[in-house]
Structure formats: structure tokens, C-alpha cells
């Protein structure tokens, strides 16, 4: 089995690679179209800013490659947001696999809501094979200022003043807003479930 991690101008690729390594899997970091398309599993990670990331992907036509993949794909954090339709972060049109928009957290009262959300929050309403053996209300590590709204593809919900999509799934595309690679054993379980698809 070949697992690739898409290489682009967004951080945390090393952490994802190490998380795979802890599960005994070698993750190849690449931006080569053929290599990505030929892989059994594709991980699309990311920490960064939406418009610069999309620009980078478009310049290399990686947006089309990613959107057209047929094998299981796992988007993480910014990777998940870029798989949505549009992001408010610098008004960016994204890849559009998931039919939801990405918005910025708004504090109802000044300083009530700290942005970005940094820390461990629980996930509920779990209904995807990637959550097998992951208990309802499991805690995951989140770091983000923008969120994907709830929609038909929502398969896990988290609350930070409002309810939003902690995870999305549509056909062969799986995506999580939190960082499974940094979410201790429960996070590792999700990555393992994805690798076992």
C-alpha cells in the first residue's frame, strides 16, 4: 500500500509523516501528479492561509488533481477547508468537493471568544467509518480561526459558540478540522481507520 502526503506551501507535513510512522506506515511527501494519482491513500494536510495555499495549488494544477482523485483522501485542517466550496479567508474559491462554505469565527461579545480556537474540544454526532472505535464526545486538538459550516456532508460536530463541521465525508473524500496527528490515541485511531479503508 502506498500512502502519499501532498506537498505544498502549508505547514505540519512533518507531524503527519511522524504520525504515520508511529502506525508503521511510510508516508511519501510529494507534489508529483502521477505519484499522487497512483497512490492507494492520499493525505492532504495543512496549516496556513487559504488564498496563498489555493494559489500555490492552482499554479501547479494540484487543485484539479486533488478534486479528481478516486482513492480515499483525508483532508486535515486547512486541507479540509480547501476541499470546501469557498472560504471567507481572503475571499478564496476552493476545490469544492464539499458543498459547504468556510467562515470566520465571530465573537458575540468582544473578547468572549478567543480566536483562533486553540486546544482540545469534543466531537459529537459521529457517523463515518473513520470514527470506528472512537467514542462519542472524544476530545481532539483544534487550532483554527475559520470553520466549515454544517451541511449534508457533516459527519462530526463540534461547538465553539456555534455548531460547525468537525468532519466531512462525501464519497471517497474524508476531512477533519482537528489534527488527528496531534490528538493522542483517539487521533491515531482515526488515521488508522482511514489507512484501513
Amino acid at each position, binding site marked *: 500500500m502506498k500512502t502519499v502526503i501532498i506537498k505544498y506551501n502549508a505547514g505540519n507535513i*512533518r507531524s503527519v509523516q511522524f504520525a504515520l510512522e508511529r502506525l508503521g506506515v511510510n508516508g511519501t511527501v510529494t507534489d508529483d501528479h502521477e505519484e499522487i494519482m497512483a497512490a492507494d491513500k492520499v493525505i492532504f494536510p495543512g496549516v496556513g492561509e487559504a488564498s496563498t495555499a489555493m494559489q500555490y495549488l492552482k499554479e501547479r494544477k494540484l487543485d484539479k488533481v486533488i478534486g479528481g482523485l478516486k482513492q480515499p483522501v483525508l483532508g486535515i485542517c486547512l486541507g479540509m477547508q480547501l476541499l470546501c466550496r469557498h472560504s471567507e479567508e481572503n475571499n478564496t474559491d476552493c476545490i469544492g468537493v464539499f458543498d459547504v462554505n468556510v467562515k470566520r469565527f465571530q465573537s458575540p461579545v468582544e*473578547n468572549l*471568544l*478567543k480566536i483562533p480556537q*486553540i*486546544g*482540545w474540544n469534543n466531537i459529537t454526532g459521529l457517523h463515518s467509518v473513520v470514527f470506528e472505535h472512537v467514542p462519542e464526545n472524544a476530545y481532539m486538538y483544534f*487550532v483554527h480561526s475559520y470553520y466549515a459550516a454544517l451541511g449534508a456532508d457533516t459527519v462530526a460536530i463540534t461547538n465553539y459558540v456555534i455548531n460547525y463541521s468537525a468532519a466531512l465525508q462525501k464519497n471517497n473524500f474524508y476531512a477533519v478540522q482537528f489534527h488527528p496527528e*496531534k490528538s*493522542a490515541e483517539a487521533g491515531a485511531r482515526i488515521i488508522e481507520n482511514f489507512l484501513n479503508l
Partner: protein
Amino acid sequence: MLTKRIIPCLDIKDGRTVKGVNFENIRDAGDPIELGALYARQGADELVFLDITATNERRKTLAELVTRIARHVNIPFTVGGGISSVEDVNVLLQSGADKISVNTSAFKEPALVDRLAREFGSQCIVLAIDTRFEDGDWYVYLNGGRVKTDVKAFDWAKEAVNRGAGEILLTSMNNDGTKKGFALDITGQLSQNLNVPVIASGGAGNMEHFVDVFGNAQADAALAASIFHYKEIEIPALKTFLYNKGVNVRF
């Protein structure tokens, strides 16, 4: 619901964990990788590694250590100590650190905070402040608490947040090493007036102190070192205690 975070801090010198009591009198407390992984298993929410090595080999050694930590530890961690440039930060993040903390270098050159936030995002930039209460207010100290400034901790924290710092790690020098509790007033002032998370540090001596800093001072996270290293408080027991006191924590 977002939980309050418990963060063990590991001071590192020449690749080993040490703890300075009141920033002096250093004692060895173990291997950083093993200790970090142990804390992660016990339910620590994050780790902070503070490098206090002062040799020329420092940067390379630290990057290698960060890679080893990232390989073995499955929770987020911050690296701090002597970081003073975009390149330093780039190397540490590439090596696998989730966040970096800046202290003296950022105070001396505040534009560094803007540059780091622009380059890497606010979410990975932690501003560390060492502060001491004297003459009626909390003042910023530099160089590991050895150099006094005439700038108030609150003013500097506010400026740094405006420049892009994503979190504040606030250490009270008055409280550090005393085990008499966190500095609730300045922690609360920052936490309630800044829209970024505040990590309280210095003074943890018993479990009730954590309840106070989360409840009264509304800290987002609490950091401690020696009480964890010397097993005076164990993290699972602390989490249970906090939960029973109505503090939202992760199990």
C-alpha cells in the same frame, strides 16, 4: 466544549531536562523524550520545551531534539528559548514543533512578532513574558528574569497581540518556585482583556491552585514543571480533581 489545558514544561539543557527553582539552582529531572511521552500518555494536553543551552552547538542540537520529540510525542508541543529570527523559527517548525515561543528577542525587536505571524500564522507564535510585581504594578523582565524593564506586562502583552502573537505564556517571577499558587490578578487581567489564550505559569503547588487559576483568573491553560517532574501532583489525579470541581478538562 473547549477544555482548559494542563501543560508540563520541560527545561532543556544539553538535551536533558532540568528545572530551575526561581530560575536558579538547576536540578536534573530526566530525559526529555521519555518524560514528554509519559506526560502525553498521562493526559497532558500540550508540552512546552524551553531550551536554556547557551553553547554555539545549540541550534543544531535543538533541531535534532525537536525532531526526536515530534517522532515520539503524539500531542502538540511548543519550543522556546533564545529564538530570535524567522530562520530559527522556520528550522524548528520544519523539524516538527507545533508552536514556538519568543521572549526577550521579541521585546527588543517587536516587529519580529509581526514578521513571524505573517510568515507562519499567529496560531504558532506564543509570546512568553516573565513578570515581577513591584512598586504597584507588574513589569516585564528579560533574559530569564535577570534584566528589569520599565514596561508593564499588560501593555507589552496587548501590543504583542496586536502585532500577531497567538497566545501569551505569562510567568510570575514572584510566584515561580514558591508553590503558593499562580498570580491570579495579572493572569486574570490578561485573560479577560485579550482575545488570545493565556497560559498561566509560576507558583503551582497543589491542585486547588489550578482550580483558582482556571476559575478566578479565567486562564485558558496552566503550566507547571517541578510538581510534575517530582510527582508531587500526577496529571490523571489533577484532571479528576478539576473535573469534580466543575472545570472542563479532557480525559
